[in-house]
């Protein structure tokens, strides 16, 4: 089942497209990471999936076919937005009560237990909490709704490294315990590299690459060889990026597997996720692997 499925999805603000021609099929039961520079269209995509923003073009469904923003979608999705996830003038207790009144399900006991673990006092105004505590409060409120999909827009941006680790471990625990699917965004891949099962790289409002992290890593490799042969080899292979360093050149190419023949004079290396992501971000216009057939590496390497 797809937790989020988009087809030709686009959003235009005035004359510029914040997101265009986005076709994705994100599988459920995983942590999907949405990575890209600021202004890449991450928030726009998440807002449309959460039902906040009406698409200009295309469609988006969630939870296996529910239209985004429909009652069933709202019931099953918890969304913690960037920057302002809580009412600053309400106490933590009031935020719990508010969220309980606005939803069909609310696990008050687990929410209070989690806040107690985190040392967040119920009587304190949400606006007086630290950035990390506010993010944890928003996450606690979202998880207490027992969602099937948790959408977190740049949840780590305001957090220090320790708080990031705490936050992600809370998310991972919820995933393991309740089977929540998670969609996280960040402008820095390093934040999400360790937790992401599925990766979507966005840049300039377009999807650069999307797929299972394992498939992406298996479907790409770096070839190192003589710089003078780089252009010729690059033309023959499905090349994402060419990097030259003195007499040597590094090509990031798509591959159908470790048994793919290596051109004579070149050596093959596995690629890291960060290197792969950066290559796609730096090579605008390069279409990424097919998005829908993400489970079939052979198709990816077409």
């Amino acid at each position: 089942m797809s937790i989020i499925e988009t087809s030709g999805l686009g959003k235009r603000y005035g004359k510029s497209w914040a997101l265009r021609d986005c076709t994705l099929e994100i599988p459920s039961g995983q942590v999907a990471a949405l990575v890209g520079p600021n202004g890449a269209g991450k928030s726009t995509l998440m807002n449309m999936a959460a039902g906040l923003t009406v698409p200009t073009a295309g469609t988006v469904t969630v939870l296996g076919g529910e239209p985004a923003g429909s009652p069933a979608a709202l019931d099953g999705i918890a969304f913690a937005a960037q920057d302002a996830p809580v009412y600053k003038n309400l106490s933590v207790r009031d935020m719990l009560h508010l969220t309980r009144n606005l939803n069909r399900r609310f696990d008050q006991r687990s929410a209070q237990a989690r806040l107690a673990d985190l040392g967040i006092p119920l009587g304190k105004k949400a606006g007086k909490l630290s950035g990390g505590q506010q993010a944890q409060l928003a996450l606690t409120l979202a998880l207490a709704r027992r969602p099937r999909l948790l959408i977190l827009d740049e949840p780590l941006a305001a957090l220090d490294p320790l708080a990031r680790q705490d936050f992600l471990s809370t998310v991972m625990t919820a995933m393991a315990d309740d089977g929540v699917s998670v969609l996280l965004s960040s402008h820095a891949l390093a934040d999400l590299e360790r937790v992401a099962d599925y990766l979507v790289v966005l840049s300039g409002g377009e999807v650069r690459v999307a797929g299972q992290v394992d498939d992406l890593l298996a479907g790409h490799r770096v070839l190192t060889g003589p710089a003078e042969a780089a252009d010729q080899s690059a033309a023959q292979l499905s090349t994402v990026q060419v990097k030259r360093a003195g007499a040597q050149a590094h090509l990031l190419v798509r591959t159908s597997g470790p048994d793919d023949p290596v051109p004579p004079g070149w050596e093959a290396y596995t690629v890291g996720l960060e290197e792969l992501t950066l290559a796609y971000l730096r090579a605008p216009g390069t279409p990424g692997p097919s998005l829908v057939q993400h489970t079939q590496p052979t198709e990816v390497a077409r």
Partner: protein
Amino acid sequence: MTMLTLPAQPLPGIKPVPWRGMAWVTWRQHRATLISVPAVLGAIAVFLWIMGLKIHHDYAVLTACHPFDSNACQTLNINFNQTDWTTGNTVNILLHLVPPLIGVFAGAPVLARELETGTFRYAWTQGIGRARWTIAKLTLLALAITAVAGAFSQLYAWFFQPFLAQEDMTVYTATVFDMRGVDFAAWTLAAFSIGVFFGMLIRRIVPAMAATLGVYLGLALTTWGIRAHYPLALVTSKPVSLIFFNVSEPLVVATWYTRPGGQPASQSVVSQFLSNFHNGSRPTMTWTQGLAHYGLTQWTRYIPVSRFWPMQLFEGGWLLVFSVLAIAATVWLVRHRAA
């Protein structure tokens, strides 16, 4: 052996989140409005009640005074017109600010604050859905504010009653009509609705407040101009006295004259007729004799005092429709132009 199997459970439909939760949400988020509006109007009501007792007492003494031409009675009269009327007039002018202030400070921020601070991304992604959230919140706030304003204006009508007769006013005097009956509540509701609409349209608190004030004032002043043209006027050929205003006077919309055949009278004949009653000179004939002398019939379109309540309900009615449309447009904007 066959095992008994439970029939397949129908897929659980998504039952909507109950409305009643929104009562607490509205109360908690708009406590400031829901406390301060009744508190401020309540404090003013106490003042009106205390002042009203004095004014009613003064008025009773004044009307009981006999003979009216005596020095004692004239002193009372002057005192009433100066002291009590100063209070009444000031209160009347200031209370006209209540509906626009409610529109500006209670109406405009309801949605604009959510949009300005970004908290709409929390509120509108909860299970209840943003349409229900908006409808429930606006309905509860509108009902509370309208009810408080309605109750307040009944006290105000009692407070102001002595001035109607004493200060040359009719029930249709513009600034009196819209403070009494259902009109004050209707204008308060309209101001609130204008506020929430512009809050959602403009999405910024301060510009929305300015737009609310401007549109409310425009609407209120326009209404002063068109009120006489509500389709509730009567036409009579009986001469209507136009000399003194008084609480029992009708609202005269238009006057014109015809000749015996029914054609409009020429302007010169009317001028000649009217000149008999101008310049403070002692008229040589009564109004009725004058009309007969010049062969004129006087026609008057007027709204009798007995139509006060139909007039109130007509204005209250269209303001209610206007307010419901403004709130419906706001809900439409919330649903379709969220982000």
